[in-house]
């Protein structure tokens, strides 16, 4: 086959995974309403798609299993309902398909699907057509036309390399080999043969026949066909792998609307036009045209940027697909009754944020089922746009967080002194569950106890410049809200000057900026504070947090109000410079080892500006924040 299928492989893998997720979701829905005709149809179509794609890629076991599930389901489609046993079986089939996709993605041979397919007969509905019979054993030589070999799937044409050894006592081996060659020619196209037809016609001894056959048939079929013929001692028949000389690293793929691609082409066209316009203006020294041209270029670049970011956007649905299935399994494990509702699945986020969010989201839902819901209840996963941010919320109507338990645990773990714990308000206690290793459950439960914890959820959120908020009420439920930027590449930054350096804060971390008069500042104990609304917000010196020399205060004091550990803080800077959109670069080792620095950006003049994270700056060393405090 001339087409290099490896190009399509990644696409196949990612699309199959999506189909499998959808199947999982549909199955869970069908379990609740087994006679949902549309759901059953949709499920059937998903299986059909997987089969078709796998077949055209030449992934035989995957195609076979897809076909089997499709067949299995078609019986229930006719009957109009699907029983629970059948749902379990299809779920098991989906698991097996996932295993196959893993095999293919790791470039391993596909695992054996026959035991699964053979084991199907018991679960088939009475109205179902007979499940495809197991493939013939190698010992049994089965000819093609007797209906026993079932690979009706158009499996994609492949080149088979066939070696036939004839028994030593064959009477007319050359004639026998010629017959085989002609038989095979009827199954496809014989590309080459050794000995070839001309040689065979001359007769003589033919111990073996080697040939390459381009055929739609599976190697096993060809093998069976040959073994059924006389004088054949041994047959080997394998698919010839045409491997690229160098192994390409696996690139992740995205699907792009063709409309968007058209816009790229249009933009490219405009950029080319713009370039000639600028060239002409430059050649003829037309300053005004140069300026206009540059302005136009700026607009085009902004446009291009916007569209490039669009390509990276994916709907939340791409990571919520697994949730229904997980909740179903949790229901079975815990005996609880949980209604999972997902809203705002169409809300789009940058691909890399979504990928990082997949596990934390599962964890939060698991937590909600495990720790929140008591016997029955509802878990709501929702997403919505809030200006430049996306709010992702996991909410349950369960028992709510136990502030007392958190207090005890925090004291027990040495995170708070008993006095501190007593004075702490409930809402200040909740963020403590995000500390590494913190769990209010005495025993480690099978589902929530392992793997990612709330500390990971928080770290992932903050890594993208997002924030995490926890609200909870005893007996009413818990809500965890993640506010995430839409896209990682471009964020709005607030630039400040401090100790002669230009620094940036993600605007998502800035509540407001102020120019304080000296008289507005009060002292509370050894700590300087500023009243904002009805709160006394501690004043912290960014210079001290950055270990820069202190500076005497003169005139008004520029302050950035931010949040750290769920509380407001006011950072004193030297100067507020302004806001700008910036392409943020994440930092590589060893820069990523520096706490409190979350990224950097390069300004138009080549200057590097580091992005600081106030929370990270506080976490490092100064547990109470006292060392950074502005003292009277």
């Amino acid at each position: 086959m001339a087409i290099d299928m490896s190009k399509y492989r990644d696409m196949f893998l990612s699309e199959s995974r999506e189909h499998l997720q959808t199947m999982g979701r549909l199955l869970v829905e069908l379990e609740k309403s087994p006679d949902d005709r549309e759901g059953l149809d949709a499920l059937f179509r998903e299986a059909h798609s997987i089969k078709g794609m796998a077949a055209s890629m030449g992934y035989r076991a995957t195609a076979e299993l897809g076909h089997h599930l499709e067949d299995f389901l078609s019986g229930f489609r006719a009957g109009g309902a699907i029983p629970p046993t059948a749902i379990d079986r299809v779920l098991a089939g989906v698991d097996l398909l996932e295993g196959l996709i893993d095999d293919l993605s790791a470039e391993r041979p596909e695992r054996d699907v026959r035991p699964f397919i053979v084991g199907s007969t018991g679960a088939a509905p009475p109205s179902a057509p007979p499940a495809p019979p197991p493939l013939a054993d190698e010992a049994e030589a089965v000819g093609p036309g007797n209906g026993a070999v079932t690979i009706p799937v158009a499996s994609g044409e492949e080149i088979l390399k066939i070696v036939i050894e004839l028994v030593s006592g064959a009477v007319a081996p050359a004639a026998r080999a010629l017959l085989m060659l002609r038989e095979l020619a009827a199954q496809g196209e014989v590309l080459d043969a050794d000995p070839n037809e001309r040689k065979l016609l001359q007769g003589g001894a033919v111990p073996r026949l080697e040939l390459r056959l381009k055929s739609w048939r599976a190697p096993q079929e060809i093998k069976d066909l040959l073994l059924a013929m006389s004088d054949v001692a041994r047959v080997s028949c394998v698919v010839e792998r045409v491997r690229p000389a160098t192994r390409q690293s696996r690139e992740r793929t995205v699907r792009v609307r063709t409309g968007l691609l058209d816009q790229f082409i249009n933009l490219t066209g405009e950029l080319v036009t713009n370039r000639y316009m600028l060239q002409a203006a430059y050649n003829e020294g037309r300053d005004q045209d140069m300026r206009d041209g540059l302005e136009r270029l700026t607009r085009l670049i902004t446009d291009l940027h916007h569209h490039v970011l669009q390509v990276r956007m994916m709907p939340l649905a791409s990571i919520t697909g697994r949730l229904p299935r997980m909740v179903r399994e949790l229901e079975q494990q815990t005996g609880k009754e949980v209604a999972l509702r997902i809203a705002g699945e169409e809300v789009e986020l940058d691909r890399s944020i979504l990928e990082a969010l997949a596990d934390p989201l599962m964890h939060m839902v698991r937590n909600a089922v495990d720790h929140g819901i008591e016997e029955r209840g509802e878990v709501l996963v929702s997403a919505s746009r809030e200006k430049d941010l996306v709010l992702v919320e996991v909410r349950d109507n369960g028992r709510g967080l136990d502030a007392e338990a958190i207090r005890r645990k925090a004291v027990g773990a040495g995170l708070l002194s008993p006095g501190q714990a007593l004075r702490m308000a409930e809402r200040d206690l909740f963020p403590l569950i995000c500390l590494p290793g913190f769990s209010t459950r005495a025993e480690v439960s099978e589902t929530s106890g392992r793997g990612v914890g709330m500390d990971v959820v928080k770290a992932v959120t903050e890594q993208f410049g997002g924030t995490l908020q926890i609200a909870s009420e005893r007996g009413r439920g818990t809500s965890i809200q993640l506010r995430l930027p839409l896209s990682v590449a471009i964020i709005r930054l607030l630039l400040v000057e401090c100790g002669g350096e230009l620094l940036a804060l993600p605007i998502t971390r800035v509540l407001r900026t102020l120019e304080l008069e000296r008289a507005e500042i009060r002292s509370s104990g050894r700590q300087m504070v500023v009243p904002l609304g009805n709160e006394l917000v501690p004043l912290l010196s960014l210079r001290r947090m950055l270990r820069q020399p202190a500076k005497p205060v003169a005139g008004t004091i520029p302050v950035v109000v931010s949040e750290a550990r769920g509380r407001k803080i006011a950072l004193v800077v030297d100067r507020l410079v302004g806001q700008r959109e910036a392409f943020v670069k994440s930092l590589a080792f060893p820069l990523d080892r520096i706490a409190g620095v979350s990224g950097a950006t390069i300004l138009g003049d080549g200057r590097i500006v580091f992005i600081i994270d106030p929370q990270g700056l506080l976490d490092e060393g100064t547990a109470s924040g006292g060392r950074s405090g502005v003292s009277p």
Partner: protein
Amino acid sequence: MEQLLAFRLGGELYGLEIAHIQEVVEAPPLYTIPRAPAAMPGALNFHGSILPVLDLAAFLDFAPGKRDARVLVLSPAVAHLALAVTALRGVVPFAPESLLPTREEQARDTCIRAVLTQGREMINLLDLKTLLGRLESL
């Protein structure tokens, strides 16, 4: 024959295989990294990559002194890092089999992988693996 780039750190002569070096950059502007350790005087913008500069002499506890304005940008396969040294010397060809091994504890403390004798001089071959390992705990 292989080649190394020789440079001085305090009073010692060190060297690094040129295969590990992507480029020597002439006096790039350095931008202060907030909260960076003292041995990291700043970062440079290297064709759009942000690379921290490690002052090797300071990091390996040589007496503070002048620094060569040029920095060695390591190959990206090694690390996203540039090295500042006391003074650059030049390229020295050497036969890998003429390298003398160092004791293990010496390698750890001084980041020296092997020693090369060059006439009356000794060149310490920088052990990048140990160096990067020590950066893990900044």
